């Protein structure tokens, strides 16, 4: 009876082996490329977030990964801090660029969001993100509606105040904590 069963299942077993081999090959061939894609998602942004940076070096601070942005020669150019929090619809994950003293925000990049297309997801647009560059990192930013923001202020995306506030909140909190926890005197 049992033998019979195995006899019948031989096709399944052969197929499983074949498929296993094929998948192993795919994994071997494409795995590194996929991993690189994932990493690129973060690392490739570093030069755009911190002026003069060429690449980032991961570093663990307080149980979290941050990146030290270094220029071509390996000299410190600034910091890139990953952060995340709740947006209007779903979590928003982003990267914050800071200068060497972590005194000024140099850039912002949204890694992942699920906000309403056409509304909340406009926080990913470069024009809006540009409002963060050059802001001081010493005091929390505030959101303003309907008028251009001055120093320390970010104008909300029209019709998406909640998303805008979420992003600013995430940035404020992450920057404040990073300033508290970052290694003394670094980089």
């Amino acid at each position, binding site marked *: 009876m049992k033998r019979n069963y195995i006899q019948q299942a031989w*096709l*399944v077993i052969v*197929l499983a082996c074949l498929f296993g081999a094929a998948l192993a090959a795919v994994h071997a061939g494409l*795995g590194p490329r996929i991993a690189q894609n994932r990493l690129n998602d973060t690392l490739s942004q570093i030069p755009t977030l911190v002026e003069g940076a060429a690449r980032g070096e991961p570093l663990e601070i307080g149980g979290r990964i941050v990146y030290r942005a270094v220029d071509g020669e390996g000299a410190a150019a600034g910091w890139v801090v990953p952060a995340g929090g709740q947006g209007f619809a779903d979590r928003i994950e982003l990267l914050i660029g800071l200068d060497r003293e972590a005194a000024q925000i140099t850039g912002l990049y949204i890694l992942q969001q699920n906000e*309403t*297309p*056409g509304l909340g997801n406009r926080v990913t647009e470069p024009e809006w993100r540009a409002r963060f560059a050059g802001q001081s990192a010493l005091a929390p930013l505030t959101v303003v509606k309907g008028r251009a923001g001055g120093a320390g202020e970010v104008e909300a995306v029209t019709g998406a105040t909640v998303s805008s506030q979420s992003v600013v909140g995430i940035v404020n909190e992450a920057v404040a904590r990073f300033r508290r926890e970052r290694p003394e005197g670094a980089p």
Partner: protein
Amino acid sequence: MSERKNDGPTPMERFLGGLIPENPVYRQILGICPSLAVTNTMEGALTMGVAALFVLLCSNILISLIRPLLKPHLRILVFTLTIATFVTIADRVLAAYLYDMSKQLGPYIPLIIVNCVIIARCEICASKQRVFTAAADALGQGLGFTLGLMTIATVREILGFGTWFGKWLGWRVIPATAPAHWSNWVIMILPPGAFLTLGLLLGVFNALTAKKEKAA
């Protein structure tokens, strides 16, 4: 002669059948989930369509090749194993070469595994007919499915973003000068728009084919 009869529809019939008379989306109402989930952009629709076509083609060919060896009670198991393998391959290939699309389509690519279009084709055609017919069937059904997705995406992307293939080709259909809140119907991008669009298109498709049948 009798052998031909047993072989069922010809490759050409299979191929053409998939396009309209037996269109998976509009006629068989199969694979509705991806039809809704990935069709807010043409890019998503096309990518999903091609991925499904790939899986369908590979599975149909393989199943047809081994059809004399199939045992009835292990049939579904073999189908599922085959489909899951090809889906995994498609998923990895996308992640490697079209990372953005892979991120956008998320879990809907692996969901092709349970997409009934594919199991249905394995069952109806591939496990009974010769390789060439099975391949033609897969092509027809896959293209029919892609066509279905793209019609939905056309409506949704144009109304929702004012573009057609906006991400890849940047074609604007509604001029950018139109006020944004007038030209971009957010609802079309969101779930309600997906359901409403598919519902209406189903109605249009039925009305058109009904008219044709009446005329014939």
